[in-house]
């Protein structure tokens, strides 16, 4: 008897039966359920488990239940069709034309004739139904009446009734159970096996007799989806932290911008191809902004002297969506901050591009400016080299290029893995730009797109994935924590 390992529910069943049943006696499962106060379906399952462990014996018992069908009940009440036929014949002197019988019996005609003929009560000759003899009893009725009274009937009688669909016979199985020994003595010696420890086990002290079931520790756990911060926002915040570490102060401005700050202040001539609806988003509403006269005058003088075209102040006031965050740098310089200083901004910029896997009409740019009474192009490249190392980029290439607002101007290519990405433009602001903005010290500047670097880091092929609203994608993207540790990208 020792050494039985029971589950908690098996244990609970046995405990509930303590003192209520005797060993060696057969009980039905219904009785057990009733005694234990547990519902029948779980009792059945538990008893089977107990039987497997040899604590109880089970026996199935089949019982037949006979029930009278609706037709049978009707015959009992209203009379059998053959009975009706006989009494009709008796009424009419034992001989009636079949047509008339049909009228009287309706749809029961064929049943009545078949059974009355089989029993030898009638015969039919040339369309006339004739009574042979007056019957004494009908066996079917006698059997049915016995059934109603609950008296036993013979198999043969039953078969007859079944053929006429007057009764239905259903087989029912019930489970009988017999305990080998008294539950009270069993529960004292069992070990309880539990799936998970609960507070109740601890409070009741049950855990002392409990054994926790061993897990298949290698099985896959259920999937969990935590609330998570967005990977691209995380990346942007990380870049902000690096800029802060490098002594840059964050600034921002609205992405709706005047052409003045986006282009004119940056010495980009008004006929420059980028200043057209094929490259820049122009606003329908609102259309025009405001700039201080002094700034307009300086831009006019500088543009006209250098480029030789009549500079149109009206054009400078036109509102656009900024095409680069250098507009923000221009704005802060126009406030004439005292050097040395380092400023940065990260914001969205807009260009007329169709949406495809490599292009979006909006993306993010980081713009940084650094000024000192002596700051050089070599300082700028040094500052950038420091920045690249901090984001985990070791190799970069510098290539001279042209921007209207810087001289020299350079593009920088970063090696990320085994691809070279052109992500950055930089240079020293031209004296013309500084003159327009009213600044008398050199300023180094750079602008960098963030999307392509983020794509390389997160292994994305399609730029649109950075803006995906698909919850499944966002829940499943992996963080790249090691990037933040400054490890090589």
């Amino acid at each position: 008897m020792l050494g039985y390992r029971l589950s908690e529910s098996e244990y609970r069943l046995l405990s509930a039966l303590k003192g209520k049943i005797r060993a060696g006696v057969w009980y039905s499962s219904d009785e057990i359920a009733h005694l234990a106060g547990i519902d029948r379906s779980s009792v059945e399952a538990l008893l089977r488990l107990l039987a497997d462990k040899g604590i109880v014996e089970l026996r199935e018992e089949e019982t037949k239940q006979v029930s009278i069908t609706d037709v049978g009940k009707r015959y009992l009440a209203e009379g059998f069709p053959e009975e009706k036929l006989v009494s009709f014949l008796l009424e009419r002197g034992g001989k009636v034309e079949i047509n008339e019988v049909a009228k009287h019996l309706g749809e029961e005609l064929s049943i009545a004739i078949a059974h009355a003929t089989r029993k030898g009560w009638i015969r039919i000759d040339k369309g006339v139904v004739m009574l042979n003899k007056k019957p004494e009893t009908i066996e079917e009725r006698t059997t049915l009446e016995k059934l109603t009274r609950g008296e036993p009937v013979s198999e043969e009688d039953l078969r007859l009734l079944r053929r006429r669909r007057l009764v239905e016979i259903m087989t029912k199985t019930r489970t009988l159970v017999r305990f080998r020994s008294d539950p009270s003595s069993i529960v004292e010696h069992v070990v309880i096996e539990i799936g998970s420890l609960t507070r109740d086990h601890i409070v009741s002290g049950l855990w002392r007799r409990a054994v926790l079931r061993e897990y298949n520790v290698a099985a896959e756990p259920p999937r969990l989806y935590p609330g998570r911060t967005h990977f691209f926002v995380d990346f942007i915040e990380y870049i902000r932290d690096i800029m802060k570490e490098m002594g840059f102060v964050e600034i921002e401005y609205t992405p709706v911008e005047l052409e003045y700050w986006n282009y004119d202040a940056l010495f980009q001539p008004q006929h420059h191809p980028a200043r057209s609806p094929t490259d820049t988003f122009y606003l329908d509403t609102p259309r025009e902004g405001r700039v201080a006269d002094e700034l307009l005058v300086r831009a006019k003088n500088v543009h006209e002297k250098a480029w030789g075209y009549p500079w149109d102040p009206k054009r400078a006031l036109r509102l656009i969506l900024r095409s680069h965050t250098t507009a923000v740098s221009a704005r802060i310089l126009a406030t004439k901050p005292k050097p040395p200083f380092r400023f940065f901004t990260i914001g969205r910029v807009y260009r007329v591009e169709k949406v495809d896997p490599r292009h979006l009409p909006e993306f993010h740019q980081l713009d940084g400016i650094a000024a000192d009474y002596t700051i050089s192009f070599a300082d700028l490249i040094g500052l950038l080299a420091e920045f690249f190392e901090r984001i985990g980029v070791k190799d970069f290439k510098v290539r001279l290029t042209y921007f209207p607002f810087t001289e020299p101007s350079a593009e920088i290519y970063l090696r990320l893995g085994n691809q070279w990405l052109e992500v950055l433009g930089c240079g020293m602001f031209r004296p013309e730009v500084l003159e327009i903005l009213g600044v008398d010290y050199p300023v180094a500047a750079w602008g960098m797109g963030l999307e392509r670097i983020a794509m390389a880091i997160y292994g994305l092929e399609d730029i649109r994935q950075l803006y995906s609203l698909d919850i499944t994608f966002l829940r499943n993207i992996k963080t790249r924590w090691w990037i933040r540790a400054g490890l090589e990208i």
Partner: protein
Amino acid sequence: MPVLKFKQERVIEALGLSLAKALEVLERLKAEVSVLPDGSVELEVEVDRPDLYSLEGIARAARGLLGKETGVPRYELVNTDILVKADDVPTRPYVVAAVVWNVNVDEAFLEELIQFQEKLHNSHGKNREWVAIGLHDYDKLPSREIYYRFDDIDYVRFRPLGHDKEMTLRRVLEETEQGIKYGKISLMGGKHPVLYSGSEVISVPPVINAELTRIEPGTRNIFIDVTGVHKQLVLNVLKVLVANLAERGKGRIGLVEIHHGDYIERQPNLESKQLNVEVERISEWLGLKLDVTTIVDALKRARFDAQVFDDNRIRVSVPAYRFDVLGWVDIAEEVAIILGVNSIRPKYPEKMMRGKLLEKRYWERYARLVLAGLGFQELYSYTLVNCVKQSLITGLDKASMIVIANPVSIELDCLRSTLLVGLLEAARINTHSTPLRVFEIGDVVTRDRMSDTQTTTRSRIGILYMAYKAGYEDIQAVVYTLLRSLGDEVIEVMPYQGRPFMKGRAARIKSIQGIEGVLGELDPAILEEIGIDYPVAAAELDYTDIRRQ
């Protein structure tokens, strides 16, 4: 950036270098080079260097870079008997002209010439509006007397280039491809600029030349006219044209006299521009220790002349075709190009400076953590949205939104003024994944008459909960928990009535730390229109004015 295409043999011939060497030199001249599958060479040249739009100009720079030929190139300027008499042409007042001898046009060069002309039109001529170039076979000019007039388009007849019949200028403007494209630029009151040689039309700038003076393989000498609306631009274009064509010829350029009433001038003027530069300033700007000799040598290889004044100063002559050189910083760049950008070693920052982020960043960062902790997934969406959808959600009409005049698609024709547009789009595409808890932090832009841009940027946080049953309390609990976790407290709550919320089931709130916002249950009429068949509760909080308690 202008993209130019040349035949490989022509690159090798013009530069006198092997292809590999030629490509290397081109890279150093700031051009991006690629060899196309058909063997031709494609160059992306910067817009500031129109002198590199033709192979002869590139070769001139390359010879300098390699030290084969240095200093300002000399061209022989000779007088011609050509006289341009210019009337007042109000829509296109300036005309200049020149002759370049011995250009000797062949098939390959003719293509290059057309490419050169077109790139100049695009980069410096505002697509012919400001400057237009006419190139003619000098020897086909019927007369040395050139007239520039503003004539009635019904009375001018000629055979336009590439057409087989003579027609009126009206028909040229209205029916030919070029006419339709450029015919309106200088047309006014039925009159248009016309250039005649004697009594024959040779060009109707900026539209088309006459067949009469067509340049073709075999053409030896070229007559150039340049017309436009801004004098300096017109002169600049002429300078670069003659200087590059003269590189192909034997360097002989013919001067043309222009009479504007009593005002007489002779063009082109190829005099070099003189600039004084300081060695120290260039050194400091680039961050390179440079001495006078290095700079002088470099500038000569950049095809400038350079003379030493003293230890610190150099007098530089800039050839006329290099009108991109505006001042000493451009000289500094030339030095960097010649020495190679890699000669400038990065100087790592040494000065310690105190960096700072916007204060609101720290609020954002905590807010993101709290919401993630509450099981909300952060989203990041576009700021370009559809005006109609935004109207549906906000109730704003187009006049009070920020509407783009030239959107790339009508789906993206407004700048967002609420984060709910993106959040509801997320709800729409994620109905298979309820309950959905999402949020977004980002900027929206609204109208503001007080601002210089007529707009103001607001920092917002949007939160959305979508479920089989999603109500006011669900979102209210999140908002209150968020604020309290950040040390804030709601101080004012008022029922809110307005889109996209349901009446009686939304509120406007204010907090001690300066947050304002709305929250509530969304109107099912709006949800249905968006295509969402689950209840949604959402909030949008504005933390632009966040302040510590």
